[in-house]
């Protein structure tokens, strides 16, 4: 990386911070801070969904998935496409949620099941979500460390993490959802150009047919292409669940549906976003596969470092700067969306209901900003101390499962089953906690020897569903809420 690349990165980051300061003037109240005043058009909504979901972290873990599973891991992208497309065509869950005009999933719990479910749901959501983003900073720092060709020293990694954190915190606290949306838009353009160039140079360097031929020289056909034999049916089923969760249950995605201008746009948004979900998986995965081929199977290089090392070698000067600027923008975009999402949920759905009084908009924004700083400190420390060896995608799946295995049944049954009760909802949400067992350090602590954490996630999902049904049948609510 030379001076031209570094100049491009510095100019770009300065520009994006300027945008953050400028958009601060457009945040008038908490709704503006949280869901951009519910004033987002279709195109912008699709872009921001892609902008948020196609972050540096996504690119890194999907590239890692490509390195590990090769083309057979493409089934994850296909599952995400089909599931999101079905949701977009049918309007399942999303239309009903948007019609309720709630700002978040816990607010829906409140409307449907009451305050206790809201607070519990928001707490579990925050635990799962915060654990989920715990490794983001470290992954971003690994990318920077490798693409700049820095020494793979732990101290350098920590310094990069601290600098990245500072950048993200300043940006996120300045704006709120409006600046998130504008950064997402700019990031989408820069990252798209960077992506197109990376793919062009990958194919130019390795050669389209050579990618497949080289792989077939290293691994067998089944290992490269067949997901059923390579990963097994339980893993594939888990990916279908994750596809549904990523599109509908995960707060950073559903916030986009709740921010959109009117109900009629929600279905269109999801139809287009189904392609976004495909793109965000397949393209980084492809870059991971190219890196694997380029390094002849990637011996002696960690699966996470392979893709950035590869890009730093194949991209010409200037373009490398543009790609890194795009990736850094993607990093900021994901972080600000996530930090904003969790902090506003903690403020809106835990602190305010527990305080038993209506907090003013200014006070809520201040509390959210304090929480953003606390979360920033947490991801810094978690990144330093967590030593699990699971693939990042599996780590994300299982930490997210703490929240979503319970949330899936609570949301679906709550919307479509009149008999769903608040006791059933609380039992289902608590049932989701069983997925903690899937986390590698917990598995090792308890002594469970299982290679596939997806199986634990599926069992937790089944457990939550049964608890929701039994709890609702045996402990019905006295006052039924119709939605």
């Amino acid at each position, binding site marked *: 990386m030379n001076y031209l690349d570094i100049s491009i990165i510095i100019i770009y980051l300065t520009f994006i911070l300027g945008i953050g300061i400028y958009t601060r003037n457009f945040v008038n109240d908490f709704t503006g801070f949280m869901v951009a*005043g519910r004033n987002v058009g279709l195109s*912008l909504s699709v872009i921001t969904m892609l902008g948020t979901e196609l972050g540096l972290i996504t690119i890194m873990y999907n590239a890692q998935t490509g390195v590990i599973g090769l083309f057979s891991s493409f089934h994850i992208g296909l599952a995400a496409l089909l599931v999101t497309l079905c949701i977009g065509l049918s309007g399942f869950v999303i239309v009903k949620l948007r019609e309720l005009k709630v700002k978040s999933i816990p607010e829906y719990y409140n409307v449907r099941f009451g305050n206790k479910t809201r607070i519990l749901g928001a707490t579990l959501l925050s635990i799962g979500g915060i654990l989920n983003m715990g490794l983001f900073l470290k992954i971003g720092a690994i990318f920077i460390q490798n693409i700049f060709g820095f020494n793979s020293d732990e101290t350098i990694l920590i310094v990069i993490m601290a600098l990245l954190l500072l950048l993200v915190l300043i940006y996120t606290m300045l704006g709120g959802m409006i600046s998130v949306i504008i950064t997402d838009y700019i990031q989408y*353009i820069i990252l798209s150009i960077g992506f197109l160039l990376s793919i062009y140079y990958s194919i130019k360097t390795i050669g389209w047919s050579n990618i497949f031929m080289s792989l077939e020289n290293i691994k067998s056909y089944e290992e490269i*292409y067949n997901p059923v034999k390579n990963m097994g049916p339980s893993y594939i089923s888990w990916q279908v669940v994750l596809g549904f969760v990523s599109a509908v249950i995960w707060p950073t995605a559903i916030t986009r549906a709740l921010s959109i201008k009117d109900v009629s746009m929600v279905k269109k948004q999801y139809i*287009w976003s189904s*392609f976004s979900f495909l793109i965000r998986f397949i393209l980084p995965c492809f870059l991971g596969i190219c890196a694997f081929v380029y390094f002849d199977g990637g011996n002696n290089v960690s699966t996470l470092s392979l893709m950035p090392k590869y890009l730093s070698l194949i991209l010409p000067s200037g373009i490398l700067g543009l790609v890194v600027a795009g990736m850094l923008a993607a990093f900021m975009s994901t972080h600000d969306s996530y930090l904003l999402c969790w902090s506003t949920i903690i403020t809106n759905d835990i602190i305010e209901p527990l305080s038993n009084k209506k907090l003013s908009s200014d006070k809520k924004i201040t509390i959210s900003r304090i929480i953003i700083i606390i979360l920033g400190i947490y991801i810094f420390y978690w990144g330093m101390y967590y030593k699990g060896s699971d693939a990042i995608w599996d780590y994300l799946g299982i930490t997210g499962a703490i929240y979503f295995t319970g949330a899936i049944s609570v949301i679906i049954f709550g919307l479509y089953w009149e008999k769903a009760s608040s006791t059933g909802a609380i039992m289902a949400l608590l049932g989701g906690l069983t997925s903690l067992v899937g986390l590698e350090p917990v598995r090792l602590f308890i002594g469970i020897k299982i290679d596939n954490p997806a199986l634990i996630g599926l069992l937790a999902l089944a457990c939550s569903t049964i608890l929701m049904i039994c709890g609702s049948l045996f402990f019905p609510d006295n006052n039924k809420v119709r939605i």
Partner: protein
Amino acid sequence: MDWKLLWQLLLIFTFIMFIVMFIKFTYSGYKDIKNMLDK
């Protein structure tokens, strides 16, 4: 089922959709931002 062919077709489809979406949404997204900030 020929898995290799399926993944190759899916990859090419993804490239095409990426370019289509980039062209379509870059322009219309800009108009959305202008409308949102004007309000």
